[in-house]
């Protein structure tokens, strides 16, 4: 995933800003990374390098921490954050098949974002509606009893919504 120059600049500035507070004791590493993630929504490589320089540790150590914990994202979240439930019930009902369907359709892997920033894909633990397994949550909208065909359907309806919104927006401009 390529970041724009603007994104890189914002990431560096934000990280430096956060780093101006805490000292370089190793215990501050994760709180700092959490703040970066909170501000930016993700932790890009440039931010990790800034953090590593501040704490005087190899950059790969920061990368190790980021990849160890699920709470950290390496790519910016998409406009539609697709969360695939991997709870016990969903898992038993084939959540990994649903995951594969999304990965194939969006041409990205879990934890990544599409090049146009429309979709990002994540695995989550139980979302609490096991009777509807397997479940996919798109932003806040819960979709139950998902099948690979339903994945296509969801993507199609999203495309339609987008087209309608664009058409409406066009009309508004025309008035």
């Amino acid at each position, binding site marked *: 995933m390529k970041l724009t120059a603007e994104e890189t600049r914002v990431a560096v500035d934000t990280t430096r800003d956060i780093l101006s507070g805490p000292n370089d004791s190793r215990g501050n590493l994760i709180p700092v990374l959490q703040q970066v993630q909170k501000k930016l929504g993700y932790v890009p490589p440039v931010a990790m390098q800034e953090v590593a320089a501040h704490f005087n540790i190899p950059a*790969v150590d920061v*990368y*190790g921490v980021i*990849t*160890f914990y699920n709470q950290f994202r390496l790519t910016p979240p998409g406009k539609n954050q697709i969360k695939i439930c991997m709870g016990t019930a969903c898992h038993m009902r084939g959540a990994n098949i649903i995951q594969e369907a999304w990965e194939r359709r969006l041409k990205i892997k879990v934890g990544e974002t599409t090049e146009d920033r429309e979709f990002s894909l994540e695995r989550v633990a139980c979302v609490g509606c096991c009777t509807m397994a397997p479940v996919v949550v798109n932003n806040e909208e819960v979709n139950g009893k998902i099948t690979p065909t339903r994945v296509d359907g969801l993507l199609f309806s999203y495309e339609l919504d987008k087209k309608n919104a664009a058409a409406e927006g066009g009309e508004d401009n025309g008035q």
Partner: protein
Amino acid sequence: MGNQITFTVDGKIINAAEGEMLLWTALDNDIYIPHLCGERNEKERPASCRLCFVEVDGRPAPMPACTLPVSEGLVVKTRSERVDALVAAGFELLMSNHRLDCKNCPANGNCELQRIAKARKLRLKPKNLPVLDKGLPVDDSAPGILYDPNKCVLCGRCIRACRHSGNGVLGFTRRGFERIVATFGDLPLGDSGCQGCGDCAEACPIGALAKKA
């Protein structure tokens, strides 16, 4: 530290400096204890390979020899039913995730895994566990170094070597079964700032990191 003391390992009386780790004193006296992660002159002792277990008199359970400082009158047995069971289980788990290709492996004949298997009469191929190959590509991008992550047993010796004499480009990343020694952003070694000193290949007890032939 520095005081000479005597203790026994498998009935053999050993003299050593007090406070030295049992593993190294035993090895110095030709008593082999399996080990992967430990290094003699290293402050950091991860004790993570779980192979150097020994039975110590007065201790309720076997303990790793690499983190046990020797003291006067210590009585140690390197083999017992419990030790053998622990080592066999640990070794089998390691091997269940190690790509076995001894014939083509650069470490063949000088491999710590082969040595352990021979010393403890263990099989290299796990009997009870399926072999789960990581299926990752072999990295040959660095000058002089070949890295096959599928063989790695995560002892961490290359990481320490890289920090001592290299640029510190290697580190542990990810978690659980996916844990792997990698570089920042998973760059191939050749693009990572690796200077190709080859100390990681030197440190690797198996054939995961090797010098190019």
